[in-house]
């Protein structure tokens, strides 16, 4: 499956099927720091992602100190 990552923007190819939780573990990402979006729909941690899916892993941590 195609996996889009941000900050910096880059694309990875990852073999499915794989659960959201396992995908985030493999990419060394905290679950609280990202949303996982399939197409234009949010998917929860137990969702199984397939080879044909297009996935965006969107970081949610933001902000300056102001």
């Amino acid at each position, binding site marked *: 499956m195609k996996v889009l990552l*941000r*900050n*910096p*923007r880059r694309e990875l190819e990852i073999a499915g099927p794989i659960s959201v939780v396992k995908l985030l573990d493999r990419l*060394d*990402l*905290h*679950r*609280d*720091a*990202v*949303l996982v*979006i399939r197409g*234009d*729909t*949010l*998917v*929860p*941690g*137990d*969702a199984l992602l397939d080879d044909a899916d297009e996935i965006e892993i*969107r*970081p*949610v*941590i*933001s*902000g*300056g*100190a*102001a």
Partner: protein
Amino acid sequence: MKCTVCRGPAVIDLRRHNANFCPDHLMKFCRDQVVKAIHDHAMIEPGQRVLVAVSGGKDSLALWDILLELGYDTDGMTIGLGIGDYSDESTAISVEFAERRGLKLHRVDLRGDYDYDVPTAAKVTRRVPCSACGLSKRHLFDKVALEGGYDVVATGHNLDDEAAVLLGNVLHWQTEYMGRQAPVLPATDGFPRKVKPLVRLGERETAAYCVVRGIDYMVEECPMAEGNRHLRYKEALNGIEAASPGSKHDFYFGFLARAAEHFQPEVDEARATLVRCESCGAPTPDSPCAFCRLVERVAGHEPVPVELVRKPRSKARKR
């Protein structure tokens, strides 16, 4: 995974609440948390005019959307910070949000109105960009709120923001800042009332709200903020939260309930010594105020490109 409320398909799991939500109940959850924050901290009275500080990011747009849904009388305000494409795109998103809904959006542009921008200010003052950025925002939101007769300024600070700021303040024992970490800062002579209605929501929740609500927001991180201490504190807290869900909430709300009042005298003492800025009239410890000094020092300098100020990207780490 099923929605904890309706047993329909869930789109998100929130471990600190031990709950999963479908889109509709996620939106209800977010609105309910804002209602509770406004109620518990007496943030906004019915009929008051609210100025929403809008950056184009997920928090401020979710906040504006929720306040509108709840029926508050709101206008927005956005500041063009001059941080290259990032600022241009953020402003465009804010303008689009307001225009689509027929809302009033005040616009201030640092370069156009004050002849400087954040990267140039950082370069000239040799301080971190967030310093000039925060100073400019605080001053200008206060100014527009007071001049426009708004009762309240609402900002999109969320639980992650507040917990991270608190961690930084505790680590460095910034006790006066700790006294100011309330979800409501009351209006005082020369300062408008300021409220943080998102303090009960984490930033993953506000981002998810925007996605399910179809709100387009600025996803890219500010190139000036990259690697700053605030983000490091957030990453550290996320590590703790992963091992112990609910820790951020307990840290921040425990502080408010058990400790914040101990630091209030220091805030009152500092406030009592404020004088008026001889240039703009704003309350300040020393005249002229920090904003007027900044403008005096940096206005008119040749604009500095973002690339000359931003830090090199740090090594990959879990975040």
